């Protein structure tokens, strides 16, 4: 009798273990993050969220990862760095997420880093600029293709494209907002100015709440620069482009690091004023043959974006938000577990195949090589958004392997 009881109890214990492990396998794989759904960068945050939700649906349709459905747990960080630490603490301690990724942008990635480091979590950043330069965290990765030296990689295309002009430019004006991103962009620009031996005739910053940019443009015009590099946020980008057209800037090349012209809002609002401007982009319909999966994804994104009132084009952030999740998906599948050290180790060693092409990370977690595209706008007529959905409005100047034409200068003669 005693033996029978022991067998029965052992059998029940084994059954309960099996049931428990089965129940664990059925639990969703939870990925947590903060995202800017309100505040100044909410437009980007919402667009990124749509892309990540599309990815989760795609993965779950294929049966999930490691046999577990994926669930995204996210909170609104209000585009405020102060909200970020509490969000990630809650995600890890209360929601018990399996993985964390960042929200959009440097300002909300940096405050999440100490928490990721304390918990030894692999941490994937969405469009942070050089965040890891101070942390040196070996489990940090970042999906924006700015390269191992983000400030330098971000600005390289503008200067390399400008230096193809004959005669070569001699002087440059640098201007940007008193804020984190423009400071980084201007730092990168100064490195190229030094490398190329250009003479800086204007190097100044302006307060982020500047309303009228015409005095700044006139001061730049007075120095008669060949190149004008601008690092700005959307309202300043619009103000700067308008002021340049009002004053009649006589530079050979104008633009570079203006945030905003990548999105439908400023593309349509500025319309023909963008003709001749050289600025960075991450995707253009001209390159659809190089990224065969992006057209279908962007089509799906655009149908949802229209309903949610966010960027109706989705060329800038959404493809990379999706690619970020693809990197994580491929890593977990290859490693076969959620071991954070093994995931980070695998990500350092592997080249990933994503919607935005091949992605390989360098030692600091940034892309191993920069791939920020520099384009020149042309032929824009009116303010219709549909003209941007097909090829013909931009010439890709950089990188050379994606180039679709040559830089046309001077800027003021190409405003058509």
């Amino acid at each position: 009798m005693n033996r029978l009881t022991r067998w029965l109890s052992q059998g029940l214990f084994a059954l309960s273990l099996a049931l428990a492990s089965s129940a664990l396998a059925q639990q969703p794989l939870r990925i947590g993050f903060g995202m800017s759904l309100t505040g100044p960068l909410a437009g980007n945050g919402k667009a990124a969220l749509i892309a990540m939700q599309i990815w989760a649906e795609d993965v779950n349709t294929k049966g999930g990862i490691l046999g577990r459905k994926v669930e995204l747990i996210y909170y609104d960080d209000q585009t405020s760095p102060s909200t970020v630490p509490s969000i990630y603490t809650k995600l890890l301690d209360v929601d018990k997420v399996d993985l964390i990724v960042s929200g959009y942008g440097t300002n909300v990635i940096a405050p999440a880093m100490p928490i990721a480091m304390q918990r030894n979590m692999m941490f994937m950043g969405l469009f942070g600029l050089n965040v890891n330069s101070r942390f040196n965290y070996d489990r940090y990765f970042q999906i924006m293709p700015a390269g191992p030296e983000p400030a330098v990689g971000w600005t390289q295309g503008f200067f390399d494209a400008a230096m193809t002009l004959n005669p070569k430019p001699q002087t440059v004006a640098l201007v940007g907002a008193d804020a984190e991103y423009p400071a980084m962009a201007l730092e990168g620009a100064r490195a190229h100015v030094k490398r190329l031996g250009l003479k800086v005739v204007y190097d100044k910053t302006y307060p982020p709440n500047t309303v009228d940019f015409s005095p700044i443009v006139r001061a730049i015009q007075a120095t008669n620069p060949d190149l004008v590099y601008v690092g700005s946020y959307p309202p300043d980008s619009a103000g700067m482009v308008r002021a340049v057209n009002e004053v009649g800037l006589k530079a050979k090349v104008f633009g570079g690091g203006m945030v905003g012209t990548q999105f439908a809002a400023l593309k349509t609002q500025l319309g023909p004023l963008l003709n001749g401007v050289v600025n960075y982009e991450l995707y253009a319909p001209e390159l659809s043959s190089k990224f065969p999966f992006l057209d279908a994804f962007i089509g799906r994104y655009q149908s949802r974006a229209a309903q949610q009132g966010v960027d109706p084009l989705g060329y800038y952030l959404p493809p990379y938000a999706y690619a970020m999740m693809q990197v994580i998906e491929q890593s977990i599948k290859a490693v076969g577990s959620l071991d954070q050290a093994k995931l980070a180790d695998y990500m350092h060693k592997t080249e990933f195949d994503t919607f935005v092409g091949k992605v390989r990370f360098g030692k600091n977690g940034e892309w191993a090589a920069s791939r920020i595209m520099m384009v020149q706008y042309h032929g824009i007529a009116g303010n219709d958004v549909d003209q941007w959905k097909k090829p013909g409005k931009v010439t890709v100047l950089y990188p050379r392997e994606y180039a679709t034409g040559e830089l046309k200068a001077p800027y003021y003669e190409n405003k058509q």
Partner: protein
Amino acid sequence: MDFSTALVLNAIIAGLLLGGFYAAVSVGISISFGMLDVVNIAHPAFIILGSYIAYIVNDRMGLDPIVVSVVLSPLFFAFGMLLYRIYYLCFEKRGQESLRGLAFFFGILFITEVLLLLVFGVDYRMVQTRYSETTWRLGVVDFPLRLAVPFLVSVVMVVSVQLLLTHSFFGRAVLAVAQDQLALRLMGVNPVKIKERAFALSIATAGVAGAFLIVIQPVQPAIGREFIGLVFAVCVLGGMGSIWGTLLGAFVLGLAESFTSTFFGPSWSPAVSFGLLLATLALKPAGLLGR
């Protein structure tokens, strides 16, 4: 005329045009804060509300945003009356207007922003007008109509407010409220009604200023916060409760910003502007035209 003269002349014009816009966004605060002692920290939110209403009418019907804002200003006036009535009943009547009233207007600021976010989304919005891409040139001086048209309408609006306040019974009653409410009561006038209408007038000017803003630059729901410091600075620099002072203070700050941007570097402009404010208050504590 040499090049530096052209720079100086353009800096003067740019400063005046910018000052005209600053006057429009600040005149409402000069009424509510300067005259009525109501710390309406939500004033910039009503400016953004005005921007979005102008945007939606411009987008759907193609009407000029500034014309739309003037036509719809009675709506803002009515909204201002309602808001003051709530503020009066909940806070001022109970003598709790100082800190709790401030919290009330902070709340209104956030609620307005969130409502705009929910209705219009998070993208930057801008309007298309026939004049926004036109610049008139007079010799070496540029007059971008994107700034010149708001400037002209702003000056007309501010002068009209001043005339209303000095040449009408209502205006004199508002000035009386600012000085001695008890005396006004003894004259048989209800100061609450006067304050209600004066506050409503300040909200109406915010609606019109919102149209100016969206003509000048793209807006998103949270952009109004950037103007909180500016509007109070203009109000205090000009002299609390002085409409002419507000206009003068706005021109001073506009010119200071324009000259600093042109000749010394734009990053110095806030320091110069607020340095001027401090210097003025040190020499003339009541502000430029304050009593």
